[in-house]
């Protein structure tokens, strides 16, 4: 299926799912579903720089939080509506990714990884000290009383918006993967020096990849303040985002756009179900263990198994 065909299909599926979800009466479905969709976007976004290009980003939480706090800042300043804050949050996160990439991607991958982690720490300190967005005490976002499209509650709208964002993220990831750009990124991932000597402008492509990846992560965060009508730094910068955005693509498979989708839906759903019975710390521990097990024993993830099985059948 070409990119031109995929985009409308993805959009149609997203709209269909959004419409179908209006029939669900269990409210918990929406809160849990929103979280899983959030992770799908984060995993897909992370994989653009991670799986496609080979550069590990430990600071997913930072870019997610940038999206979230841009929404808060614009809401506090101008009572900006959701569409505006989504665009703004995505743009600011993209710029941050561009900046971080520009500073550190000319160096070895490990320095980018460490810088991304350090960015998360620094940004956290910054937000905690910034009273305009609530600082450590947090900020309240009032959900509009009138829910557009005749939906019963605001969370339904957030859920639907997130579905559309998932469609967008998948379209972008797939488009990159199948384009000339994607080939260049794959070459960089496989052997950066050989890629450079094959004519690939490695620095330029890496920076673009970082920018796209971070922008999408920010996009995922722009609706977060509306999720609970309240946001505070430790939840926005939660460790869960950092580890899940790496574990999900790894477990699903890092080579294509399907892997992060599978990994996020599987792992995300399991975590949502398990969360009611087990504490969040145990939850995170299991994710961490899965990450280590998969990266050591099954580095190509679930899609890797599928590919291997398919190759074996072909013989």
């Amino acid at each position, binding site marked *: 299926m070409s990119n031109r065909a995929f985009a409308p299909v993805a959009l149609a599926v997203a709209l269909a799912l959004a419409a179908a979800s209006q029939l669900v009466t269990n409210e918990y479905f929406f809160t849990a579903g929103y979280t899983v969709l959030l992770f799908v976007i984060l995993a897909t976004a992370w994989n653009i720089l991670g799986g496609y290009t080979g550069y590990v980003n430990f600071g997913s939480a930072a870019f997610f939080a940038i999206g979230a706090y841009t929404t808060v800042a614009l809401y506090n300043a101008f009572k900006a509506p959701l569409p505006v804050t989504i665009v703004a949050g995505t743009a600011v996160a993209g710029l941050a990714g561009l900046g971080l990439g520009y500073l550190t991607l000319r*160096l070895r991958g*490990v*320095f980018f990884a460490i810088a991304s982690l350090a960015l998360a720490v*620094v940004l956290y300190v910054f937000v905690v000290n910034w009273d305009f967005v609530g600082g450590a005490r947090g900020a309240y976002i009032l959900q509009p009383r009138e829910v557009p499209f005749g939906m019963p509650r605001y969370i339904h709208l957030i859920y639907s918006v997130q579905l559309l964002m998932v469609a967008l993220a998948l379209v972008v990831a797939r488009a990159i993967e199948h384009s000339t750009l994607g080939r260049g990124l794959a070459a960089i991932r496989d052997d950066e020096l050989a890629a450079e000597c094959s004519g690939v402008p490695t620095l330029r492509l890496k920076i673009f990849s970082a920018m796209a990846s971070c922008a999408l992560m920010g996009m995922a965060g722009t609706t977060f303040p509306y999720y609970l009508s309240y946001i505070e730094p430790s939840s926005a910068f939660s460790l869960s985002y950092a580890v899940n955005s790496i574990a999900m693509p790894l477990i699903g498979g890092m080579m294509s756009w399907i892997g992060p989708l599978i990994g996020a839906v599987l792992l995300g759903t399991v975590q949502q179900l398990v969360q009611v019975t087990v504490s969040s710390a145990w939850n995170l*521990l299991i994710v961490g263990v899965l990450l*280590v097990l998969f990266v050591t024993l099954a580095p190509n993830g679930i899609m890797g198994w599928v590919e291997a099985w398919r190759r074996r059948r072909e013989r």
Partner: protein
Amino acid sequence: MEIPTALLVNAIIAGLLLGGFYAAVSVGVSISFGMLDVVNIAHPAFIILGSYIAYIVNDRFGFDPIAVSLVLSPLFFLLGMALYRVYYLSFEKRGQESLRGLAFFFGILFITEVALVLIFGVDYRMVSTRYSDVTWRAGVADFPMRLAVPFLVSVAMVLGVQLLLTRTFFGRAVLAVAQDQLALRLMGVNPVRVKELAFGLSIATAGVAGAFLIVIQPVQPAIGREFIGLAFAVCVLGGMGSILGTLLGAFVLGIAESFTSTFFGPSWAPAVSFGLLLATLAFRPSGLLGR
């Protein structure tokens, strides 16, 4: 604006004392990353582990945490060796170090932090030693013992590592493995074994540094993450693979942080290491004493 002398002097002293501690935190990374080219970002996890073990022993038996950590360091050494084995077999051998190795160590860091939260909770833990509240005064200068004692042991440890690396056969094998593995093999030395031992040494220093940490300040599991940037900043600033460079870099960072803390507020301290790291990488990537 007049800066009071006492404030200035004490900012410098605190910076130096802290710097000694930072050297202990970073010397392990100088070995694992600087010499062995292993990106062990889980290094702080072992520091925190060391802190908690020191805390447990201190809490139950009242022994001095630093003494305990030195006694228990062989355990950390063995742990380090085992970890390297896994890393080598899973990644280095297959040439997958960059992406997957990083993800692996991140997983280890993460698991350690969450496991500690599960066992100990998120509350801060501290130790009490005979010298925790003692401060030695010399004129306007304050030397808090809780900073000074770790400083002394730390500097001794770092210099000890330097001597080990430059004067012993094992040490020189480690320096050699960083430069020419083939030559080592031709001499009948197994480079993998040398790396394993060196990595064990790196983790052992982490365990001891953990004891220093909990003497200096209360700890909780999440603190580890803050030290990654610091450890790598110190190593890069000092020059990769140079132990004395690490010591120097640690002092520079310590003083920079101390000044930032004193004049701009303590919450900005983590930004200092980040900033110094970026500045070094931008302007002098080989560091102060690097090759």
